[in-house]
């Protein structure tokens, strides 16, 4: 049985429909990448799963439980944490305070705590008392990932964690993914960089205009097939 599953998921912004019946699955210990062009609905899908956007109850299931109508704060407690697009650190908080927010009001058990986050990203330990926004883009992204991990989630949603970062920094960030998996989390990674997505994922979903247009393991997908699914009709 899938750990996390969406079924016929739709999403609207006012009159505009952004998702048209999206079905995806994530198995325990699996990493799934979602690729697609700008405006394909990737971030909307993440916002729907994480509870920022409301859904029909059965549209999202986690561990067999319908979580489609739960508000965001309850979905985190269930064990689905999000690294939001654009990092979204809290400017008034230091690096360490940003991390601590990830555990607010709860006692979580598991591998991740301040110490293990600093082991994962040693640079953050040096800068723990700096304001979050004083860090470089890559370091801020590390804080955003660490903040989400602090709740010891079973599913980590990563929305465009490579956006706007230099290739060498992206490599640093993605180097953490195997360690995150090893600690027991399953991941959904939203990426615009197809090569990066294929490298990290066990399975890939390609989205276009609010629909899943292609799915498969990285080996099974040809470049042409991805190209078609990404941009529509082949050229």
């Amino acid at each position, binding site marked *: 049985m899938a750990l996390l599953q969406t079924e016929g998921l739709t999403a609207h912004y006012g009159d505009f429909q952004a998702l048209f019946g999206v079905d995806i699955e994530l198995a325990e210990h699996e990493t799934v990448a979602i690729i697609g062009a700008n405006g394909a609905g990737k971030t909307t899908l993440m916002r729907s799963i*994480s*509870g*920022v956007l409301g859904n029909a109850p059965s549209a999202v299931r986690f561990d067999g439980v319908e979580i489609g109508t739960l*508000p*965001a*704060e309850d979905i*985190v*407690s269930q064990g689905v*944490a*999000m690294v*939001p697009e654009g990092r*979204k650190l*809290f*400017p*008034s*908080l230091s690096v360490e*305070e940003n991390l*601590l*927010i*990830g*555990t*607010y*009001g*709860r006692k979580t058990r598991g591998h991740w705590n301040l110490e293990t986050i600093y082991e994962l990203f040693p640079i953050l330990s040096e800068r723990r008392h700096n304001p979050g*926004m004083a860090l470089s883009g890559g370091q801020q992204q590390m804080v955003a990932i660490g*903040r*989400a991990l602090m*709740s010891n989630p079973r599913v980590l949603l990563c929305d465009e964690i490579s956006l706007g970062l230099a290739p060498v920094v992206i490599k640093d960030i993605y180097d953490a993914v195997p360690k995150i998996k090893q600690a027991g989390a399953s991941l959904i990674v939203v990426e615009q960089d197809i090569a990066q997505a294929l490298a990290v994922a066990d399975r890939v979903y390609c989205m276009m205009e609010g629909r899943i247009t292609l799915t498969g393991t990285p080996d099974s997908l040809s470049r042409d097939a991805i190209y078609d699914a990404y941009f529509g009709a082949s050229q």
Partner: protein
Amino acid sequence: MIWVDTIIQGILLGGLYALFAAGLSLVFGIMRLVNLAHGDLIVMGAYLILLLVTLLGLPPFLAAVVAMPLMFCIGWCLQKFLLNRTLGDDILPPLLVTFGLSVALQNALLEGFSADSQRLPTDVLTTASIQAGPISLGVMPLLTFASAVLVIVGLNQLFYRTELGRAFRATSDDATTASLMGIKTANIFATATGIALVIVTVAALYLGLRANFDPNIGPARLIYAFEAVIIGGLGSLWGTLAGGIIIGVAQTLGAAINPEWQILSGHIAFLLVLLVRPRGLFPRAHD
């Protein structure tokens, strides 16, 4: 020497205005909610203390302590069940709702307590003074000022030293992302308004001990509070104290020149500060 005396009295008066303003500043800082009923809530607090004094025979200070948890609950419920529903991208609904609340509160107080002006019973303490050289300092103004400083120190400790304060700041920065991190923002807002009404109770105590009050004086208290918050810079608690002091000093200086100028000179000081520093004295770095 009389000028030094005037300025010191003004600074102490500023403590009262800072107390009026601290709750407003807290609520605005966390949820960008301008509570137009803030002044009327202060007056309501004063009547609640008066009620406890007359019904239970408590001394005013003890009555205020008893009133604090009640006011916290009122604030919590007010935010959770009414004001939270008005928050959103549009800034108009909270203004309209709190304006309506202000009118409703004034009329309810008028109905319940009549238009007669009231005062909390005073004892020796309230009229005592300390002689510091040539300057005579009233114990009550000193207590007011000390309470204002304590309230602001306390709020700063709460904000920067506690887990709740961390959640306050995170929610203030970005409520959507805060909820993604598991923070129940509706409850954070309710707690903030609850704490604001505890501060309102302190303000109400000194309001009732120092002067007469009646159901209609709320809006004028709101104006002083508002000016103190704006002068200080939105969301800055120490700025709010500075803003209160500036208005207090301007008022006593104005009154020393001509008693008719007392209120007006406070407002003029407010306008002058805005002219020079449109975002207030200590604006937040980001907003």
